[in-house]
């Protein structure tokens, strides 16, 4: 555990995140232009998509891949029900906001996943390439269950039919880009990827550093401005990633994944979306308050996952698979 923490905190990626948090806390005016931040998030999604596609083009799709995909989709769809119950009872949120927040916690955060892959790789527990496909598959199901929880199934609010809702969820830019790049990676394979490798692979960690710097700034500023966040919601924003992370890791080990991949599944379950889902909620559930869901997912759960929970999940995965929890 302790060595894991040290490793986490000497990774440049994490250090830039901490720099962002600190800069915001001392009220520096440091800011990344929004167009750049948006471009970086698109770049990270395209790069991770290609990487996963190339990996799957090499490994092929076997039983493990299919059960991992299945486990991810089921987890993504079901986790919001638990989150919803907690948010409504202990969190005292109304139905709409409970559903919206639950969708965030069921879905995934690409950047948390990517950071976890960096840290796990540093611990010689690199997750399998197909986990990117699992990640992509887990983006949407939670949005559907969250919306169902918030609005009820038949409810045609705003004249918006279920069909329109499905369309909006599945043409969400994150999902289209992630899946599209994944398919391109599969079609192009290692040979085709070689040509664009310097751009999508060599630059990846550096871009991740700057993106996390920005996310640190935004998360901390949002935290300092937060109004709608009670201590109950703060607790939930730490409790849910702990529980979901443990569940996901155990599930991963249960279906026979190696320690790294099981930890990655754990991180996917533990992570809360703050790119794809807020945009989807603003569209499909505009009555819900971004001051609640964004602050919880981005300002509490995201730093908690990056700084602490990835280490816990990694150790837990190692423990479950009989490892030691530290680098071999």
């Amino acid at each position: 555990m302790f060595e894991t923490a040290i490793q986490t905190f000497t990774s440049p990626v994490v250090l830039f995140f901490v720099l962002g948090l600190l800069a915001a806390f001392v009220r520096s005016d440091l800011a990344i232009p929004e167009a750049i931040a948006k471009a970086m998030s698109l770049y990270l999604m395209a790069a991770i998509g290609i990487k996963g596609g190339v990996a799957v083009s090499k490994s092929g799709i076997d039983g493990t891949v299919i059960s991992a995909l299945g486990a991810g989709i089921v987890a993504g769809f079901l986790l919001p029900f638990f989150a919803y119950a907690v948010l409504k009872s202990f969190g005292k949120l109304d139905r709409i906001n409970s559903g919206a927040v639950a969708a965030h916690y069921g879905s995934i955060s690409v950047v948390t996943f990517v950071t976890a892959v960096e840290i796990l790789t540093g611990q010689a527990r690199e997750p399998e390439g197909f986990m990117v496909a699992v990640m992509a598959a887990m983006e949407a199901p939670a949005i559907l269950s969250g919306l169902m929880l918030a609005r009820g199934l038949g409810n045609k609010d705003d004249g918006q039919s279920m069909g329109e809702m499905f369309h909006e969820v599945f043409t969400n830019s994150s999902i289209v880009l992630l899946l599209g790049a994944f398919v391109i990676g599969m079609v192009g394979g290692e040979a085709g990827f070689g040509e664009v490798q310097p751009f999508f692979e060599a630059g990846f960690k550096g871009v991740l550093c700057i993106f996390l710097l920005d996310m640190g700034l935004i998360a901390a500023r949002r935290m300092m401005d937060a109004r709608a966040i009670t201590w109950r919601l703060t607790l939930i924003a730490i409790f849910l990633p702990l529980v979901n992370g443990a569940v996901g890791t155990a599930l991963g080990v249960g279906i026979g994944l190696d320690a790294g991949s099981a930890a990655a599944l754990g991180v996917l379950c533990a992570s809360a979306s703050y790119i794809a889902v807020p945009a989807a909620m603003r569209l499909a559930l505009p009555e819900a308050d971004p001051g609640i869901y964004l602050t919880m997912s981005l300002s509490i759960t995201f730093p908690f996952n990056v700084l602490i929970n990835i280490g816990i999940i990694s150790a837990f995965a190692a423990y479950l698979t009989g490892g030691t929890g530290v680098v071999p």
Partner: protein
Amino acid sequence: MIETVIRKRIEILADTQLQKRVTDAIDRAGITGWTVTPVTSGKGRDGHWREERVMGTDKVFVLTIAAEDKAEVLAEALAPMLTKYGFILSMWDVQVIRGERF
């Protein structure tokens, strides 16, 4: 002296994600056009927002120039969204040249 006519200028502050609902309402009101301009940050009863483009929770201004009757229709159509989605609408009289366009 050049001839001008009076039209209503309507500005709606709306979520980027919901921009299409506003422009659809403008189209349905039979207004010839609209223009969207960017917004950087803001503060309201729900607190301060900024740097939200990555999260897709940022806002835009949609502005349109229309004859009074169509402006009325539009305001009527948008009123429910103002309350429900937290949009802001303001409108005022402006002089325009080539009034037949609007």
